[in-house]
């Protein structure tokens, strides 16, 4: 168990987990859950069974539909209550299902609960949980009673009629053939109380957990699948958005850079052509300018292609590419890289590279920093990217900003970006992504 507490928590967990409790608190939670859900289970069973049978019986006249819908809505209410209890018992968060929203005409709105598979699962849960609730309630009450009764028996033995004096009243000792005296009774029942008290946490935990598992299976597993699908969709959308932004920017860069220079180059060359006969000196000057333009265009194209797919990243891997990036940065960079010997997945390398590249570009452009630290490490299957500067801060993750493009980019690979940049600085940008 101690090893568990030694493991460092992930840098930025997406959902906070309920903390581990002591067994005593957990016993309270479990007992409360079992005791409280018993009357609820009865109510749910009665309402849902009655509602469903009545509704199905009345289906032949349209009222049945309304009754069914009402029964299902009631089941949903009971299910919501159960879901609220589950995290404490299961000691982990459970997903909330997204119910269908009523929309359209009145009849369609009325039919919405009937068309939602989750509400039917809710109704099924109301029925299935009933025996489980009875079982766990009985077990819990019995164990608590024996434990509490046994432990305190010494205090109230005197108040009971003495079984040894009456022929039609036998106690446990007499049943096993022993003589019943106050001292023996107190000893036996206290021992029993101690045994049951020791068993209570385990047994109550077991029955509460069993009942909660039924709830989890019927009430949240569908939502978990939904949530997974949603995350995948969101990730894909983010990837598409990041791609679109990158392409637009690339188009702009080409338009504003090499394309302009080449057009100007064309102009200058044809000017030189016309100048050649009349004023050769001017032509020479124009041609000189044109040669300069050609060089600049090439330089720009090289920078652009480095931005699209840096050759060093593909050839030599992330560490080498980061070193090249750091060397090019106008702000001095202290680089600390700790990566496994084998190459990471290309998408991981690319994403990490762009996070650092974009962050360094921001540092150079906006931060006014005099030095900057880049740290890229792989720990427990996550790649941690840290870019920290001593600049003026104030960086924001506003939409359309370069940094928000990074958020999308990271999100697309199931990563996260955090920016801590108070006014006055310093700025600290942390990205994490899977690097298995």
């Amino acid at each position, binding site marked *: 168990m101690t090893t568990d507490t030694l493991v460092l928590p992930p840098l930025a967990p997406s959902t906070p987990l309920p903390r581990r409790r002591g067994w005593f608190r957990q016993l309270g939670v479990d007992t409360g859950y079992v005791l409280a859900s018993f009357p609820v289970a009865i109510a749910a069973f009665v309402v849902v069974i009655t509602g469903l049978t009545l509704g199905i019986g009345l289906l032949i006249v349209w009222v049945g539909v309304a009754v069914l819908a009402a029964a299902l809505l009631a089941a949903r209410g009971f299910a919501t209550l159960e879901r609220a209890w589950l995290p404490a018992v299961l000691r982990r968060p459970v997903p909330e299902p997204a119910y269908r929203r009523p929309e359209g005409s009145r009849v369609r709105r009325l039919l919405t609960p009937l068309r939602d598979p989750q509400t039917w699962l809710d109704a099924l849960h109301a029925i299935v949980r009933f025996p489980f609730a009875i079982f766990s309630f009985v077990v819990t009450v019995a164990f608590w009673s024996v434990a509490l009764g046994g432990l305190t028996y010494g205090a109230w033995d005197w108040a009971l009629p003495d079984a040894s004096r009456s022929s039609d009243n036998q106690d446990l000792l007499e049943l096993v053939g022993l003589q019943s005296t106050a001292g023996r009774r107190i000893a036996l029942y206290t021992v029993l109380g101690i045994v049951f008290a020791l068993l209570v946490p385990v047994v109550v935990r077991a029955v509460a957990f069993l009942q909660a598992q039924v709830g989890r299976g019927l009430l949240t597993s569908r939502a978990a699948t939904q949530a997974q699908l949603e995350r995948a969709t969101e990730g894909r959308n983010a990837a598409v958005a990041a791609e679109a932004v990158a392409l637009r920017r690339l188009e702009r860069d080409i338009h504003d850079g090499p394309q302009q*220079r080449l*057009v100007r180059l064309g*102009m200058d060359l*044809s000017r030189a052509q016309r100048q050649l006969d009349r004023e050769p000196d001017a032509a020479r000057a124009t041609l000189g300018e044109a040669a300069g333009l050609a060089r600049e265009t090439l330089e720009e194209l090289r920078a652009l292609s480095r931005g699209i797919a840096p050759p060093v990243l593909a050839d030599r891997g992330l560490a080498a590419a980061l070193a090249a990036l750091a060397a090019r940065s106008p702000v001095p960079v202290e680089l600390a890289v700790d990566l496994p010997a084998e190459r990471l997945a290309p998408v991981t390398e690319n994403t990490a590279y762009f996070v650092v590249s974009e962050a360094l570009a921001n540092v150079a452009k906006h931060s006014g920093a005099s030095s900057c630290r880049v740290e890229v490490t792989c720990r427990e299957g996550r790649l941690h990217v840290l870019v920290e500067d001593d600049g003026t801060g104030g960086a924001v993750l506003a939409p359309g900003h370069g940094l928000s493009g990074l958020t999308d980019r990271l999100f697309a690979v199931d990563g996260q970006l955090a920016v801590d940049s108070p006014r006055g600085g310093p700025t600290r940008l942390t990205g994490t992504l899977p690097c298995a």
Partner: protein
Amino acid sequence: MRVVLADDSVLLREGLARLLQEAGTEVVAAVGDGPSLVRAVTEHRPDVAVVDVRMPPTHTDEGLRAAVEARQSAPGTAVLVLSQYVEVAYADELLADGAGGVGYLLKDRVADVDTFLTALEDVVGGGTVLDPQVVAQLFARRRADDPVRRLTAREREVLGLIAEGHSNTAIARTLVVTPGAVEKHTQHIFAKLGLAQDEDQHRRVMATLAYLRG
């Protein structure tokens, strides 16, 4: 000829200004965005505004909209739009007022100085000059049952040149045939397409374009 230049790239603005000055035109103003273009045209009343489509602040079709606006405040100003890309939709907007004196060329065409200067003169003279790529895109938009499909290859070529704003004489020179042969082609084309025959260069182009735009 007095010219107002509008291009947000200093590099291109200067290159173009030098080129135009060396060709003997007077560049009265060179600006970098849409609103300044409208102001410069209103103030200087140039013969022609040479305008880049994409300019700040929106970096989309700022130049085009500014050019249309400038023509409203200073009617009769010819406009030659230059762009890195050619879009038929832009050409449509430019031609919408039907007044002539408009041109739409790829920026690359500037490198062919003589053609560029001829186009500039045509536009100032009230003609219409479209980039061959625009014309090609207009042809590409044809429907299946289109009469343009009944034209011979040669006639299509001639129609394209008409749409680009060339006169019969210029077309004859380009295709290396006699003006009489071109005349015969144009008559066939106009007959097949049901367009009214007329000699005015601008109206000829507009009729052709109106037809091609469907």
